[in-house]
């Protein structure tokens, strides 16, 4: 196979070709390494997807690539996953050059299944952001339009996959950080049920919400990658045994599948072009035999408020560890211990991270705890209850993934609240801990629109099957401009 053809293969096709002996894992790795390396070397003139790219194909799986399910297919990994001996900076200056002494469980699991570490991807600092403009290592550009954001916080992963710089990538999703960039870059992104993937070795943002998931070119790749990610890990007490195997999706029809459309997330605040593409996708679903009905999520409009209390509160606690003592940056010439803490954190954290630490500290502080954090946790209960009730009537819930298509770089950086509204449709599922996928469902003004499909806890196979059937029917051409 010549190099250009190799890059057209989905990750699953590439793995099959390697297993069949028609493609060499080493050649595949080199083809991607050259592309990713060129983007990395181009700096601001490229997409700035990567914070690190492998010099050579890792040797550990090269001997018998066909004997493992992922067959040596290269994998790009979001910067916040710890990778032993490889910079893992979570997009932050405070961890510049940090090389962890161990590798995150989910990355190890994928490496054991045959994935090879191609690159680490740029991200919003500590996964806080919806545009990837909060990275200490520069903004990522959207391959569909270089003047626009790729979404965030897994913006580097999404842009790399959309531009064909990596066959697939790992991301993390706390309030939409896989699904929203997948939507804005025209690819597939899935947040699994909370607890299904180990968080051990993921540099934490908000521990009750953070989940790792795949960013891929198509739904089958998402299923394949996820199938090798899930499972209990003794190192993460919140990780669960996934109750069944993640299957290869194959549904061609949606006969008898009950799809719910919540008015609360499909009306006010959603751009007209996004709603048009969403409604067109609903028409496809109906043609495939699905029954579509209205469903109520009465507390969903309050999810964003609850999220922007809970996530910063957890972040303010998680990020207390960055104090200049054990790793990372330390401010120069501290006068005493407190001076070292406070100046290290001032110098090392970016504006958005400081804002969230302040917000979370305020919400947890004496006198405000009940009014903010306590109430937000009760809202979270109501949101989970809403979904439980809705899933008594429908199998899956459909919404747009993001209220808008990719916006211009710099357009929302001056207004944090406007940026937070990007997460309007994705945050409710995060608070409820349920799985949700974003698949591209069309274009608006020449830019991709994402369709979100959510299901009850552990319904990943049903979500993936519906996503696959719709993907085939929609026929979205995911080949963004290959840079």
């Amino acid at each position: 196979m010549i190099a250009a053809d190799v890059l057209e293969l989905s990750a699953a096709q590439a793995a099959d070709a390697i297993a069949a002996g028609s493609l060499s894992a080493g050649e595949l790795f080199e083809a991607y390494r050259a592309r990713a390396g060129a983007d990395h070397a181009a700096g601001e003139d490229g997409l700035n997807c990567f914070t690190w790219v492998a010099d050579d194909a890792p040797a550990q799986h090269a001997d018998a690539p066909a004997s493992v399910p992922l067959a040596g297919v290269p994998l790009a990994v979001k910067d916040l996953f710890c990778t032993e001996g490889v910079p893992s900076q979570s997009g932050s200056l405070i961890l510049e050059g940090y090389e962890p002494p161990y590798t995150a469980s989910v990355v190890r699991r994928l490496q054991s299944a045959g994935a090879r570490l191609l690159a680490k991807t740029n991200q919003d600092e500590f996964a806080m952001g919806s545009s990837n403009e909060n990275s200490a290592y520069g903004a990522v550009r959207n391959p569909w339009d270089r003047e626009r954001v790729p979404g965030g916080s897994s913006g580097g992963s999404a842009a790399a996959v959309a531009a064909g710089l990596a066959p697939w990538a790992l991301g993390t999703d706390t309030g939409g950080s896989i699904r929203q960039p997948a939507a804005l870059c025209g690819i597939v992104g899935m947040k699994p049920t909370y607890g299904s993937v180990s968080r051990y070795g993921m540099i934490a943002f908000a521990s009750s919400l953070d989940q790792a998931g795949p960013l891929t070119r198509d739904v089958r790749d998402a299923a394949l990658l996820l199938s090798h990610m899930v499972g209990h890990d003794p190192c993460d007490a919140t990780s669960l045994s996934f109750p069944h195997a993640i299957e290869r999706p194959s549904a061609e029809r949606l006969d008898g599948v009950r799809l719910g459309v919540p008015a609360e997330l499909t009306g006010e605040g959603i751009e007209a072009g996004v709603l048009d593409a969403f409604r067109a996708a609903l028409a496809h679903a109906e043609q495939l035999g699905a029954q579509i009905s209205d469903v109520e999520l009465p507390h969903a409009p309050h999810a964003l408020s609850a999220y922007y209390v809970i996530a910063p509160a957890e972040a303010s606690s998680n990020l207390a560890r960055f104090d200049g003592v054990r790793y990372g940056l330390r401010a120069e010439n501290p006068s005493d211990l407190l001076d070292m803490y406070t100046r290290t954190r001032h110098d090392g954290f970016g504006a958005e991270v400081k804002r969230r630490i302040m917000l979370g500290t305020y919400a947890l502080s004496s006198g405000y705890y009940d009014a903010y954090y306590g109430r937000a946790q009760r809202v979270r209960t109501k949101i989970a209850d809403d979904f439980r009730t809705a899933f008594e009537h429908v199998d899956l819930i459909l919404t747009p993934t993001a209220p808008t298509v990719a916006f211009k770089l710099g357009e929302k950086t001056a207004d944090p609240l406007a940026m937070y509204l990007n997460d309007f449709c994705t945050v409710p599922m995060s608070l409820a801990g349920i799985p949700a996928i974003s698949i591209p469902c069309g274009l608006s003004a020449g830019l991709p629109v994402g369709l979100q499909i959510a299901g009850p806890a552990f319904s990943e196979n049903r979500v993936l099957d519906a996503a696959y059937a719709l993907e085939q029917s929609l026929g979205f051409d995911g080949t963004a401009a290959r840079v």
Partner: protein
Amino acid sequence: MRATVIGRDEVLHVARLARLALAEDEIEPMARELSAVLDHVARIGELDLDGVAPTSHVVGDAMPTHPALRPDEPRPCLAREVALAQAPAVADGGFLVPSPQA
């Protein structure tokens, strides 16, 4: 609802709690931005939440779970030199920090 107003003193108080130094020119924007976000999130104050239990975590609250606690048994851990390898300052096999009171 009354607009939330976070003033300079409150910003400095919270920054002290967060162990975060703020430059003079960061204080006013922080006050303004925190006020705007808190104004938005204060909408949850409108909801009737009497008798609603809080959810701190979906695992355990709503999903099948493993025993959260493992047996408390010694396990292998990082070697000292590995744990110290990324430290900004090291002395006598430990992390070196400035005195709490210089």
